């Protein structure tokens, strides 16, 4: 290890050192390095620097751009759906088949290919090595493969738009038997490409996920204990562990359904009579697929939510200049939510005909999750309480997140109860609930995070004025879309219906559907303000000085901004504290960076971390 200890023997104040073998009287002591310097491959051509790049930061940006591309496709699909629901028969190309295909692709793209890839692949890759003080991910080569596997998965998914029959239209849950039977759109090639794409995604993600976990567990810098890590890292870490344990169920169900389709096995296919004729399938279990799918599907919700929880905690703390309220509780809440998420999957299946005792069990576990989740919401609010809140775009998005998340969370408590869920099941209430809680809320965090870290990545700020326009249209618009949907659900409008035909819903819901559709068009278009802002600011944005938000965590403390390959120049940083020492009584500045040794802030009443 190149850097030796910088020993200062100036103080008599005793602080509890985190070291195991150290101690003594020197308050700045940090254990020497255990692991040698990481061996890095430095790209030397355009291809190795920007395309097949092994630098986690470039890979993170590649992940982000690819995920955002799929997100734009998902957004356009949602426009098509809203066009049909609000103004049916206006466009003749919107048939029932294409509507189901758009629903399916919109759902799968947004949940897996946008949100999961963006939070873990994008933010995870960019932030993990920087925030834990590592030079790169521990296996840069595998990390590169991970991105390219994801890229291939996206190509395969997009290819399904161009095969005969088009993409699958079985709904994003891909329930058998209908997913692979004639009559469902894309039951020939679309469903196969979807299943192959999901399998590739899981393989690619596993390669990346192992990197994230091991980098966090085994490659932290000197002084960086687990309980000094920023909550962003805790969120991404726990979500990655969930993904590594939940994606296997998706992989297995994808493989089994592929075999049902290609080889004619009957894993999920019961005896079926079609047009008076007995199909060759016999004796399989469609419910088994639902169990496997939701054993993946429910943790998936938290794979999206936990990184958002972590990131928003950091953003709120930095932009209200206060330490995060109850850091340890926040960490434990993340871990407990993650663990519990494996025991609640069947609350998606209350109407599948399972035994009521199952419903009782899963309702109980589901409602228990509300406890650590509510704790997190209280802690965010208590962090804001009497803080020095800077009401910039980042903070606006954070506040927007808290509101939408509380809204979606409360409807979640409704739906977690069997007796309330059964009548509301498969109505627009469910659509409203999960779009609020895992659509809009994580998106708010993503936007906040991009406005926050854009200066780090590019050296320039995003435009604040455009950012505020972006926020207010997105926030108010999203409420205009999803708030009325709760009402639609209460009056019984079913989800996934191409149109309402002559049912009485038409008369009472038609105006509302038009309103929702117009709001959806506006919100979608508002995202292009954001894209314009990014492109414009890349060139003309206000230049950012180093550490522009006066934050404490390591990613802002690199010798150059944007950070170069290897992140920290000659010497790795040495960490002496958590990332939340803001406005500490007795300190000269309103923030104390993680690398500030105790001897430099003797009078300050810092937290012992």
């Amino acid at each position, binding site marked *: 290890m190149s850097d030796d200890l910088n020993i200062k023997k100036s103080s008599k104040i005793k602080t509890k050192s*985190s*070291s*195991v*073998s150290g101690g003594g009287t020197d308050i700045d002591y*940090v*254990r*020497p*390095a*255990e*692991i040698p310097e990481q*061996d890095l*491959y430095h790209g030397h051509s355009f291809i190795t620097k920007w395309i097949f790049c092994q630098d986690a930061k470039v890979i993170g940006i590649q992940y982000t751009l690819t995920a955002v591309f799929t997100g734009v496709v998902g957004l356009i699909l949602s426009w098509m759906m809203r066009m049909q629901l609000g103004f049916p028969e206006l466009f003749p190309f919107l048939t029932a088949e294409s509507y189901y295909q758009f629903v399916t692709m919109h759902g799968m793209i947004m949940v897996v290919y946008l949100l999961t890839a963006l939070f873990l692949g994008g933010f995870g890759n960019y932030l993990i090595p920087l925030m834990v003080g590592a030079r790169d991910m*521990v*296996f840069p*080569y595998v990390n590169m493969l991970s991105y390219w596997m994801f890229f291939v998965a996206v190509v395969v998914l997009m290819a399904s738009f161009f095969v005969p029959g088009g993409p699958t239209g079985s709904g994003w849950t891909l329930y058998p038997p209908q997913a692979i039977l004639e009559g469902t759109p894309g039951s020939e090639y679309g469903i196969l490409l979807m299943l192959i794409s999901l399998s590739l995604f899981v393989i690619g993600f*596993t390669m990346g*996920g*192992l*990197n994230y*976990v*091991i980098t966090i*567990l*085994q*490659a*932290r*810098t*000197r*002084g*960086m*204990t*687990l*309980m*000094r890590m920023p909550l962003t890292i805790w969120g991404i870490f726990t979500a990655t562990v969930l993904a*590594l*344990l939940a*994606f*296997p*169920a998706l*992989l*297995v*169900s994808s*493989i*089994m359904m592929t*075999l049902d389709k290609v*080889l*004619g*096995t*009957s*894993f999920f296919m019961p005896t079926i009579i079609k047009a008076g004729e007995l199909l*060759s399938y*016999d*004796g*399989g*279990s469609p419910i*088994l697929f639902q*169990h*496997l799918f939701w*054993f993946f599907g429910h943790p998936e919700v938290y794979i999206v939510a936990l990184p958002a929880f972590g990131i928003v905690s950091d953003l709120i703390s930095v932009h209200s200049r206060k330490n995060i309220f109850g850091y340890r509780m926040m960490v434990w809440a993340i871990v407990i939510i993650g663990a519990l998420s494996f025991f609640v999957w069947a609350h998606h299946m209350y109407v599948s005909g399972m035994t009521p005792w199952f419903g009782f069990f899963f309702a109980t576990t589901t409602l228990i999750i509300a406890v650590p989740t509510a704790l997190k919401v209280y802690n965010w609010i208590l962090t804001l309480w009497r803080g020095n809140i800077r009401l910039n775009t980042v903070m606006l998005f954070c506040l927007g997140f808290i509101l939408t998340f509380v809204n979606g969370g409360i409807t979640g408590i409704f739906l977690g109860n069997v007796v309330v869920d059964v009548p509301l099941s498969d109505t627009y209430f469910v659509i409203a609930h999960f779009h609020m809680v895992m659509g809009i809320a994580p998106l708010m965090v993503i936007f906040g995070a991009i406005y926050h870290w854009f200066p780090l990545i590019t050296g320039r700020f995003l435009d604040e004025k455009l950012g505020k326009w972006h926020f207010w249209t997105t926030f108010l618009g999203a409420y205009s879309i999803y708030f009325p949907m709760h009402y639609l659900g209460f009056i019984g409008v079913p989800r996934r219906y191409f149109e309402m035909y002559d049912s009485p819903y038409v008369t009472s819901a038609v105006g509302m559907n038009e309103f929702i559709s117009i709001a959806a068009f506006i919100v979608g278009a508002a995202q292009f303000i954001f894209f314009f802002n990014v492109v414009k600011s890349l060139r003309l944005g206000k230049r950012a000085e180093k550490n522009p938000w006066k934050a404490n965590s390591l990613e802002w403390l690199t010798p150059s901004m944007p950070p170069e390959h290897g992140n920290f120049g000659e010497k790795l940083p040495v*960490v002496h504290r958590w990332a939340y020492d803001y406005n500490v009584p007795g300190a000269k500045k309103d923030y104390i960076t993680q690398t500030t040794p105790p001897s430099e802030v003797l009078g300050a009443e810092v937290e012992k971390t």
Partner: protein
Amino acid sequence: MTDPTLDKLPGGFKGMSSDIGSDQTTFKGVNWGKAMMWIFLLSDTFVFSCFLVAYMKVRASVTEPWPYPSEVFGLEVFGVPVPLLLIAIMTFVLITSSGTMALAVKYGYEKNRKMCGLFVLLTAIGGLTFVGMQAFEWSKLIFHDGVRPWGNPFGAEQFGAFFFMITGFHGTHVSIGVIFLFIFARKVFRGDFDTGKRGYFTTMKSDYVAIEILGLYWHFVDLVWVFIFAFFYLW
């Protein structure tokens, strides 16, 4: 591990809490690759668990009778039907290859190039034998007994489907292991691990710890086989 500071760490539960509470690494002295393999195997355990749980669920709920394993997997030796003969030999070979792998790891840590290479090679041959016998078993079931993924003459059609899928998935794991074992045998004999030669793809330095990492994978594949053996052949 060579790091002298690690010897001073406390042991037992105290050691565990101090390791988790410490900086830099959570698993003290554990190589990155080794830690990665453990986490990967945990994830892979979930894959095989999902397969086996699905198998148990469907086997419990099908209405047609499940084929009788002793009959289906029996072999006729000199006119005498012997149940589970081939499987017993396959299992013996695979478990033995775990033994040779353990010896390869031992010699790897002693930096005994020749013995390490020899045992890696023996393990690879054991794995190859296993895959070969599995191919024989599959071809017997397919061509002789008429078992297909979509149906079989013995009973519930899911028998063939689950059997081919799960043993096929396991066999793929073994085959990947065999390929890597042959590559690593060559690397050991060539002396890559003594000279720290850089990898062709990853450009990282070779180290004998790679033998242990490969060994972890190999033992895992063996362990999975024990479960598959119990659930398919003995149930």
